[in-house]
């Protein structure tokens, strides 16, 4: 167990190191003249020279990468010139909004996705099954930027029930959360269905029914707990989908989170902020997946990694 935890920690650290290398290549090596790109248009030559010296751009690439890593580890992600503040602070100020949206979407995903999946599996072959499968296929096929706009059109423009942009009250989160949740909900519903169907066919479920357990207890306590492992894995990987989906959802609804920040930063060519958001998202993804892997051992006591 301890060896397993240590190995996963080591792998996560390696992955993050790889991410930093990829970000370094994309933002420092690909552009050719990064100092010009990292500075706003029309910056004086003295500023370009100063940044060149600061970033060590006259050094060979591996030395530059060393400098880059050292400053990132120290928490120095450079200055955002759009906001004239440290890029790290600009990004951390936006994380709460994205976390709020992602959490709301995650709650919708688990609540609706798992319920639909259980319903479809328990009532296999009935119209409940077909209806939930149809909803799931639909949810996976609607592009979220279009779904968001259609929700705005229906609930904002036509019915005027809900606000379509901004961040003031709980009513503002409803439409973006639904938009962001649609795809992962569909995925979770389908996965829960197939996973439940497999478990419901097992011998110990028949034994449970034979000994007179209530159907509710068979489904929820015996089957669902075992069906949850693959669902949880996919939820972990869906963190990436949520963070990526937030980029588009936040842009559609003017939600002031990390996703909108990175899109705006690209248009302002505010690369220190872009770099910070990339590294942050990857860290969140890797960290949460590490947690999910460790959670397995709690959900499924049979899993004991040596």
């Amino acid at each position, binding site marked *: 167990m301890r060896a397993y935890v240590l190995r996963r920690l080591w792998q996560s650290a390696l992955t993050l190191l790889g991410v930093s290398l*990829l970000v370094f290549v994309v933002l420092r090596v690909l552009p050719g003249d990064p100092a010009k790109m990292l500075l706003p248009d029309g910056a004086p030559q003295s500023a370009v020279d100063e940044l060149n010296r600061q970033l060590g751009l006259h050094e060979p690439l591996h030395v530059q990468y060393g400098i880059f890593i050292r400053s990132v580890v120290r928490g120095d992600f450079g200055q955002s010139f759009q906001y004239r503040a440290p890029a790290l602070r600009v990004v951390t100020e936006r994380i709460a909004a994205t976390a709020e949206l992602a959490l709301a979407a995650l709650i919708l995903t688990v609540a609706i996705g798992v319920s639909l999946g259980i319903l479809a599996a328990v009532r296999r072959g009935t119209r409940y099954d077909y209806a939930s499968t149809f909803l799931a296929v639909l949810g996976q096929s609607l592009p979220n930027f279009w779904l968001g706009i259609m929700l705005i059109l229906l609930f904002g423009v036509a019915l005027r029930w809900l606000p379509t942009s901004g961040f003031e009250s709980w009513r503002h989160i409803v439409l973006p959360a639904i938009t962001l949740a649609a795809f992962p909900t569909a995925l979770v519903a389908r996965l829960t269905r197939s996973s439940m169907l497999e478990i419901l066919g097992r011998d110990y479920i028949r034994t449970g029914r034979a000994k007179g357990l209530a159907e509710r207890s068979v489904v929820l306590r015996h089957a669902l707990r075992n069906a949850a492992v693959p669902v949880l894995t996919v939820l972990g990987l869906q963190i990436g989908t949520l963070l990526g989906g937030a980029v588009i959802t936040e842009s559609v609804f003017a939600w002031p989170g990390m996703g909108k920040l990175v899109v705006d930063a690209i248009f302002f060519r505010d690369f220190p902020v872009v770099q910070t958001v990339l590294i942050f998202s990857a860290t969140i*993804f890797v960290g949460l997946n590490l947690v999910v892997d460790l959670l397995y051992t709690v959900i499924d006591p049979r899993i004991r990694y040596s």
Partner: protein
Amino acid sequence: MSRVDAPVTNSGAGRLSPTALVGGILLALTVLASVFAPVLASSDPVKPSYSRRLAPPWGIGGTSAHVVGTDNLGRDILARLLHGGRVSLTLAAISVVIAAAVGIVVGLVAGSGGERVDAFLMRLADVQLALPVIMLAIAIVAVVGTSPAALVGVLALSGWVLYARTVRANVLTIRRLEYVEAAYTLGASDVRIIVRHILPNTLAPILVIGSSQFATMVLLESGLSFLGMGIQAPRPSWGLMLAEGRDYLSNAWWLATAPGIMISLVVLGANLLGDGLRDLLDPRAG
């Protein structure tokens, strides 16, 4: 004379489900409509015509000259949808092929190379998965520009991991099968084993991944174009049309609605086809 038994057939397997067929037809129709765009839509998809701006679709106040209406610059929306389809579908198809090729090669190398090569390549796959595709994509596009070649590169870069992991897993399994070990013992080369035994056995899952990845690529391309980082105006692109239509939601809802329906149809078609192929070719995957 003894009776000859009828040959054993496995009916049931080997037939595409009705929903998968629907998906295939949907996909085929959109592809055909895009290929024949110049024939089907006579209007110019790019040239503005200010005298007929924001005409509603046929049947709700519009005329049959512009079945889906016109946009804010008076361009025929149907013509833009079909020409936009050419761009989106071509980019998606090329990206799927490149991603598959790269993924297959990486998977083969990881599966049949040494332990260290394998570990390195799989960590690389982890790195790729750790970054949300759309964020990496917009960062790259911001640096290298929004040319179609850059778009294809970004899309392909996002897709190789799934193929690589699947091919690798298959190589590791197939290599231990007795007949493959026998082939080794008889002196068959690595290349021969890969070409004769491993690739044919891996084709089915690759096909399944490819068809559902086509859906992902269409979504990703239109998403990037929607954000202004893909196809640039005035070229028609579904994502871009959607973005332009946002400003007219209250007085011309069809601008943003029509391209979304096209994207959804293509993605739905590819997803249904992918699911059907999986059930058909890889029954274990459920």
